[in-house]
């Protein structure tokens, strides 16, 4: 290892020395008595509207290309290439905007407030990936979303997450979706954008907290493939649901599954469903009893969810700046806190009476009371739905992608011997014939 030390130190010093040189005396000594006149302020012209349509065009083209590459070409390298392009264009070049993930909030805000301006381009950005998912699966997640791309690229040594944990973690995107809708609808901010863990990377700027979050998620992404997509992304939650009804979803094999099991561990997202085990099925009566019990539990889940949601309206409403300001002013006036904040100073300067501020805050809190209750109902329904889903079993005869979890990344294609045959990467031989026509997997496969 010692032989690497000196080159590393040298490598580290070169940029620093360059930086020193660049910034030396960049700013002259200040002069207090000069005849210098301040130049007039220059304002950058607004971005031409046409560029929004250009971005939309690029998005449509990328979605079409992704669908074609995944469903027709079935080539992971090509999908990877498109993913890198999307990362560079939508991520680094456009700095995370345009973003269908974040546009969800604009749609909600526009639905909640008719006065909220929603450009047609933004609406298209939101709906296009959903429409494409309905026809072709989650091709947006596969190769167009820059957030997905950066996670996919850093997934170097992904671990397999136990199924039971996967079930639980998979609930969070729905809960996050509920919170996103609640906050956006009630004007408490766009939490997806505020807590985007990758935007710091795309913009190469941000505070220490945002930077730490980025590093944390990138580091986590090395051992857990696409952690944000799988366990947080609220837009992904929507795509999951739509993906259930996809018309032409990517399949692992281009032909009939021979159950060679070579693809079994190829998916880092745990999205390959194995054929149902050859075992004695549990008695029908037992299964029906379980489902009956879960159906009976529905009111309990809804009641608990609604109750919890209602209780949470106070903490949730603190995210709204008016409520936060009113609480701050109350605390300042009653002497619970010392000093003032920029916000409270600005408010005092505006001359509004505390009564009016309090009234405004109470009005917002009343809205949160209803919104949080609805969120609680939604959370209860999601938990109950998951319980129900885990109580039903669908019989499968082949290896197939879990349509909700599968992001159509095309990794598993190359593991299928039928795919290799299709792409003429496997020589015809008696062994291969045996493999591609039977379920015997004792034969080792050799690729070209």
């Amino acid at each position, binding site marked *: 290892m010692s032989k*690497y030390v000196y*080159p590393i130190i040298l490598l580290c010093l070169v*940029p*620093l020395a360059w*930086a020193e040189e*660049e*910034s*030396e*005396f*960049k*700013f002259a*000594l200040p002069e*207090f008595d000069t005849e210098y006149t301040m130049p007039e302020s220059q304002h950058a012209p607004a971005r031409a509207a046409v560029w929004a349509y250009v971005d939309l065009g690029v998005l449509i083209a990328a979605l079409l290309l992704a669908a074609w590459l995944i469903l027709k070409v079935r080539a992971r390298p090509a999908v990877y290439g498109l993913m890198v392009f999307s990362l560079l264009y939508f991520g680094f070049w456009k700095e995370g905007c345009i973003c269908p993930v974040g546009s969800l909030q604009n749609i909600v805000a526009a639905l909640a407030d008719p006065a909220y301006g929603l450009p047609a381009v933004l609406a298209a950005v939101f709906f296009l990936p959903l429409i494409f998912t309905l026809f072709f699966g989650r091709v947006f997640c596969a190769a167009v979303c820059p957030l997905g791309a950066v996670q996919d*690229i850093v997934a*170097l040594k992904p671990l397999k997450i136990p*199924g*039971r*944990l996967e*079930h*639980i973690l998979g*609930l969070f995107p729905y809960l996050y979706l509920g919170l996103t809708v609640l906050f956006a609808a009630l004007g408490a901010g766009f939490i997806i954008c505020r807590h985007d863990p990758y935007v710091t990377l795309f913009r*190469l700027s941000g505070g*220490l907290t945002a930077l730490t979050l980025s590093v944390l998620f990138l580091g986590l992404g090395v051992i857990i493939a696409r952690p944000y997509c799988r366990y947080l992304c609220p837009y992904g939650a929507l795509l999951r649901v739509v993906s259930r009804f996809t018309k032409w979803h990517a399949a692992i094999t281009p032909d009939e599954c021979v159950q060679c099991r070579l693809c*079994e*561990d190829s998916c880092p997202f745990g999205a390959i469903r194995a*054929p149902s*085990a*050859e075992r004695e099925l549990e008695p029908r009566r037992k299964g029906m009893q379980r489902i009956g019990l879960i159906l009976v539990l529905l009111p309990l*889940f809804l009641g*608990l*969810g609604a109750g*919890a949601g209602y*209780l*949470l309206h*106070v*903490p949730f409403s*603190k995210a709204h700046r008016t409520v936060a300001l*009113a609480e701050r*002013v*109350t605390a300042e006036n*009653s002497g*619970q806190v010392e000093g003032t904040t920029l916000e409270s100073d600005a408010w*005092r300067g505006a*001359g509004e*009476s*505390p*009564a009016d501020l*309090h009234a405004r*805050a109470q009005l917002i809190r009343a809205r949160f009371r209803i919104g949080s209750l609805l969120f609680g109902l939604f959370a209860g329904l999601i*938990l109950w739905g*998951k*319980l129900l889903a*885990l*109580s039903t079993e669908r019989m*499968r005869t082949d290896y197939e992608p879990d349509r909700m979890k599968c992001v159509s990344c095309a990794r598993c294609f190359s*593991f299928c011997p039928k795919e290799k045959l299709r792409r003429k990467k496997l020589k015809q031989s008696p062994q291969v014939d045996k493999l591609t026509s039977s379920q015997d*997997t*004792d034969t080792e*496969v*050799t690729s070209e």
Partner: protein
Amino acid sequence: MSSSTKALMVRTLAGIAVIAFLFSAVLALQLILTYRMMQTEDPLNNAIIEGRVRQLEEDPGNAELKKTIRELDHHTRSAFFHSRQRLTVGLKLLIIGLGILIVSGAAAYRLGRKPPMPAACAGTGENEFREARHGRLFVAAVAVMFVFMTGAIVMFMPDGLEENLGVKQEPVPTDDRPKPQPVPADAPLPSAEELKAQWVAFRGWQGGAVCTDCRPVTECDVRTGKNILWKTEIPAPGYSSPIVWKDRVFVTGGTAAKRELFCFDADTGKLRWAYADEGGQDSSTEALRVDDNTGYAAATATTDGVRVYAVFATGDLICCNMDGRQVWRMDLGVPAISYGYSSSPIMCGRLLIVQFYHKEESVIFAFDGATGDMVWEIDRDPDPSWSSPVLMSMDDKQLLLVNSSSDIRAYDPQTGKELWKNDCLGDEVGPSPAYSGTTVFAAQANVALTAINAATGESLWDTANVDLPDVASPLATGKRLYLVSSGLYISCVNPADGELKWEQEVDDMCYSSPILAGENIYLFDMEGTMYVFKDSDTFTLIKKSNLNETVVATPAFVKDRIYVRGNEHLFCIGKKN
């Protein structure tokens, strides 16, 4: 590709990945240190430079110091921008390093990966079934956790909008007094003569600041106790003045938590009762910022001899009977007024008149004192005012005189009908009007002193050639008009033409208003010095005494006693038997 070539490539790629990882790790560490350094190198908040600048303010001609400041400033800015440059370059290099790490690592992993070799036994489907069973338990556990977490969140994030949140409430003493009979709404009120003999409002009967029947002592000494009949601590802060009804002295006090009306025994100074008002449900106890110099209880209470009325900075208007029981209360709304609300109410027969002027509305309310029912109100354009209304009797009618920050107006107190107005005021008006005979006087610092015909509202004369008051109200004694400015001067003016008769410097500022008691004028400055001087054409000081306590309020005079509110104590000055 031969296996040896493949192995070599894997090793090479793995080596590149290791170097890239170490490079990125060292660089990341350096970037963190640079970032930390930038936090301490803020050129706009450099303690050393700020210290030198302060030195320069004391020694503006010091060229050497100027040079040092320039060099320090340059050094700090240079260091800051060096760090920023390093950060920008470093970030770019970090991305390159991470890119190389990912590409080489992924390539090495892919090349070195063995072909998949599934285990001989099948059983994934069985696992899935088992995990679904476990998953159900997990979901149930998450549901329970969700409920517990909700409880924890609610507990640790309390409602910051709740009234009096976190403010320690003093324990309310158990009230074991016998429940008094409610005061009948039609209970007869004392006569005007009886009221006039007491001190029933700010600056006395009708706010005239005159007590001709009083004969108080002219000196006192708190150290020896000379002429100090009693001295009692007031439980809550406030700047309101005392009022007196027979054997009771009333003062108000207040904090953010509660506002209080106190009743003291006029003979002993013992606290008889305290009525605490903690605000209504609408607006009174909501967030409110008051100036330290005004506080929550700057307005003086008033009484009709049957009930006592008080209004606070929160807009709470309360009415108690003489035993401290609430008769009625009302939320007028939190007044939006700089410094805080300070206008004192006044009684006119059965009517309680409240001047409620602030930045958002200017209303004069007349309530039925017995019931709190509104009799009339005048709502004019917002025109804030800190002064108090006074009543003037002229011939067989009464005038309600009200100062605002732009004018003085006269109203019929029984109907609220406006009789006249005079645009002689301006700025932030604090002093209340004064009057004598048929002339009204309005004065405000930085504006003028104006004499007005009380019958028509026309100006008789005006002058700005005297030291004008900005807090203390003028005193009209008939033959003379006295003004006390915050600029430490007492001015005596001829009420006929505004000519200055004399002026006299005092030791400290006066917020307390001068009062004519008997033939002498009593005035307190903020140091607590009581000046007693003759109502005459020359300044004739009779005596000067000190209470050793700040005095802002205006004293109350009844017979031979003076009731003075200090910052902490209520004093009773009078001749000991």
